Each structure stands twice: as structure tokens, then as C-alpha cells.
């Protein structure tokens, strides 16, 4: 009896998953029929080059912004702990302002006002900078949070065994921080991918903008946005999976 129950478990899981998929598809299909809209995806092959380019651009912008925002985040987190008061205030203001205002507003502010004033005309460059500044503030808080989450005793023990300050950071604090922040940071990459869609407002030809232009051309709004959703999932799902794997790998920390 015991054996048969255990064998049933994976089967049960598969059945539940199948049922869930059927339910979700059913809800969607019923909603569409009720509203009287039919899906026609024939346009995809006609526009595939542009869609591919938009997809690539989103990927490029996301990766570039990820790198720059990491740098900004680290610098800001360090700055917040600095002994130089001006630096501390500057970084604190940066984090509060960026996290407290909508990305939309920042895009317009930085592109049309600050960007123009400083001669940053290239939309891709401006887009990456704006997105990096935005995400950098969040990464700064992730790093700062993980730094604070390291128990005081770890610092004390490092002192007690005779480590210098730099040895403490290098041998004790940083290794622990890496395992703590890595899952959160990869999660941030998923956010960057989604937030990059807002750059369409300054006509950066990434995925969302491409789909918008196409739907304005062929009026197939629903198909376009549905496809858009799938394509973004194609980018974010792998990132989410990697995040989960990292969380599991580093779970000894607790």
C-alpha cells in the first residue's frame, strides 16, 4: 500500500499541473469569446525581422543596464557608509529620490531635460543610463540590506581572530554578502528586463516599442500584446529559474 501511494505522487503533481493549464487556457478562451475577439497571428512571419531586432535590443539594453546599475549600486552602498559626510548625504538622496519617484517621470526628466542639457542625444545610451540610474538605487538598497543582515558577531569574531579591516571585508564579509545578494541581484535583472519596456516612451526601438509600432500598423492590438507578453516571459523565466537555483544553492546561510 505504501509503495503505491509514493508512486502516485509525481503522477498527482502532473495531473494537477495539467488541470491548472486547462483552467487558465479555458478562462482566457472564454473571456475572448465573450468579448468577440478572435486571434490572428499571421502577421508574425511578416514582421519577424523587426520583432527579432526589438527582442535583441531589449536583451542588450537589459544586460548593459545590469552591468552599469551594479556598479552604481555598489558605489552608492559604499558611499552610504562613508566617513565623508557629503558623500553619505549624496548617496542617501540618490537612493531616496530614485526609489521614491516613478520611472516614467525619470525617463522624461533625464532624457528631455538633463540629457539635452548635457548633449546626450543617442537614445540607446540615454536609455541605458536612465535605466541604470533607476535600478542602481534598488541594487544599492539590496547590498546595504545584505550588509546589515550580517550579524555583528561575525564582525567581532573577525576582530577577535586578528583580521585587519580589509581582511575582514575580503575573507569574512564579502563572501557572505555574495551568497546573500546573488539571488536578489538576479531577480533585479528580471525587473530590468521588464522596466526596459518603458524606454519605448522615448522611442528606443526595443521590444515594446516595436510591438506598439506594429500594432499601430495592423490594428492587431491583442495579438501583438499577447505575443509581447510571451517574448518577455522568454527573457524573464530563465532569469527567475536561475534565481531559484541560486537561492537553493546558498541556503546554508540560514
Amino acid at each position, binding site marked *: 500500500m505504501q509503495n503505491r501511494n509514493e508512486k502516485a505522487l509525481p503522477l498527482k503533481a502532473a495531473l494537477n499541473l495539467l*488541470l491548472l493549464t486547462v*483552467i487558465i487556457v*479555458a*478562462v482566457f478562451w*472564454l*473571456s475572448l*469569446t*465573450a*468579448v*468577440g*475577439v478572435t486571434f490572428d497571428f499571421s502577421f508574425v512571419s511578416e514582421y519577424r525581422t523587426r520583432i527579432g531586432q526589438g527582442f535583441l535590443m531589449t536583451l542588450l539594453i537589459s544586460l548593459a543596464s545590469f552591468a552599469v546599475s551594479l556598479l552604481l549600486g555598489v558605489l552608492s552602498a559604499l558611499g552610504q557608509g562613508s566617513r565623508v559626510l557629503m558623500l553619505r548625504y549624496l548617496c542617501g538622496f540618490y537612493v531616496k529620490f530614485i526609489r521614491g519617484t516613478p520611472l516614467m517621470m525619470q525617463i*522624461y526628466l533625464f532624457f*528631455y531635460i538633463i540629457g*539635452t542639457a548635457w548633449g546626450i*542625444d543617442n537614445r540607446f545610451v540615454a536609455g541605458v543610463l536612465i535605466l541604470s540610474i533607476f535600478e542602481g538605487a534598488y541594487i544599492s538598497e539590496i547590498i546595504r540590506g545584505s550588509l546589515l543582515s550580517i550579524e555583528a558577531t561575525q564582525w567581532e569574531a573577525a576582530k577577535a581572530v586578528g583580521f585587519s579591516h580589509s581582511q575582514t571585508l575580503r575573507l569574512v564579509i564579502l563572501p557572505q554578502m555574495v551568497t546573500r545578494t546573488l539571488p536578489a541581484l538576479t531577480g533585479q535583472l528580471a525587473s530590468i528586463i521588464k522596466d526596459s519596456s518603458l524606454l*519605448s*516612451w*522615448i*522611442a528606443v526601438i526595443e521590444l515594446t*516599442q516595436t510591438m*506598439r*509600432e506594429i*500594432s*499601430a*500598423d495592423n*490594428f492587431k*492590438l*491583442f495579438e501583438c500584446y499577447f505575443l509581447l507578453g510571451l517574448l518577455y516571459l522568454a527573457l524573464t523565466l530563465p532569469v527567475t529559474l536561475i534565481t531559484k537555483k541560486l537561492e537553493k544553492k546558498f541556503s546554508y546561510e540560514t
Partner: protein
Amino acid sequence: MKKIAIVLSVCLLLSAAAGCAPAVTDSEKPLVVAMELAYPPFETKDSAGNPSGVSVDFAKAFGEYIGRKVIIENIAWDGLIPSLQTGKADMIVSSMTITEKRKEMVDFSDPYANALLAILANKNSGISSIDDLNQPGKKVAVKTGTTGDIYAREHLQNAGRIELADESACVTEVVQGKADAFIYDQLTIYRNWKTHEDATVAVFIPFQDVEQWGVAVRKGNTELLDKLNAFIAKFRSEGGFDKLTQKYLAEEKAAFEELGFQWFFDLK
């Protein structure tokens, strides 16, 4: 097994609910008119935030004519036609040009106004005609999905296109020189030129056939369409459009006359 039964029955209930709608006759339902309230003085908001403008008054007059209450729905330009398709709105009065492509998705009433595209150019762009714009290296800003966008796509193959969602963003780009020109209707170009006379020039030389504005309804909704056409004819003959012009566009009409342009509601 019990869980599955509960979930299935919930789904069935949902689909049943989606299928049945309360039985209310059409004539009692309010008339939902969709427009993008971002196009003064045709579709805009007053200081209290209520819809106001030429199209709003027009829609309300139509509502009175057919004896139904009018509800104005503020929907972004991209979403206007989809709102008809999904039944969120009954008609669109949003200074929308009748085009062949749009006719595939919706039905249009008889035209109620004429419009022409014009160009707002940056002072330093050296653009004085549409041909100046159709050169490699030139950048034209357009609002996504408008006839300016369509024109640029079909006729300005050499120029780079910057598609933006807001009219104000397009103007900003021209003023700042990020774009060489913005293509939109004459009236808006005129108004924006007046606001930014130091940074822009306006080119009004017509470069295409006159565009006609119509009211859009869901495909096949002939009942509403017939009423609309009858109303438009009646409204015009009773001077309804002249009254609207007097109320909202007196200054602009004077300017148009001075510039020698044909007025919107003059369909000759």
C-alpha cells in the same frame, strides 16, 4: 478529487456568467463615446477635469437626438479601435481620419470635417517643404497610429521615424532639435508653432489629399450608423458646426482665413 470538482464548477460558473448579460434594451443603455482627451480644443478636459471640447459637445448633441444618455470614455489613441471591438464603447468621436485600413476594422459615418497635415519644423532644420524632410539623415517625429505616422511610413522612406505616444513629446523633440520635424494636423501645428515661435517654423503647404474625419462604430452596427449620418446632415444644416466653431475655435478660424486655409467643417 474534491478539489478538482470545486475548481471545475467554479470555472463553469464563470463561463456561464460571461455568457449571460442582464437583459436591458439598447435604447435604455447609455451611449458610450470613446475619445482621447488629449487634443484641445476638440477633445480635452476643463479645469474641473470633466471632458470638454468640440467632440464632446457634438457627442452630447447626438445623444439628445437619439434620446440616450452620453458617457464619455477617455481612452488612449492606441486603444480606441480595440475599445469598439470589445464593446467597451459604442462609437469613437476623436477627430479620427477615415482610412482604408481603419475601414477594415470599423465602420465610419459620413465625414463631418476635413483636415490637412502640416509640418512643425525645428528652426535650424532647413525644412520648408515635405520634400526637404524626405532626405536621409532627417528625422521626423510622429504620434503612433495617427495619419501623420501613416504618411511618414508610406511616403517618407528616406527619413528616420521617431514614433512617440504623446503629441507633447513630439513637439518637445522638435523644439530641442532631437527631431527635425513633426507631422500632425494643421490646427495643432499652428498652435504649437505659436507657442514655440523662437525655436520652430511651421510649413502649411499641403502635401497630400484632404483627410476626412468620421465617427467610428463597430463593424456591422448599421442601426447606429444610419442615425449618425442623419444627425450629421441635420446638425450641419442647422448650423451646429458653426456654433461649435464660434465657441471653441473662433481665433483659429480667423487665423485660417488669414492664411487662406479651408476651414474644418467646410466640406466643399
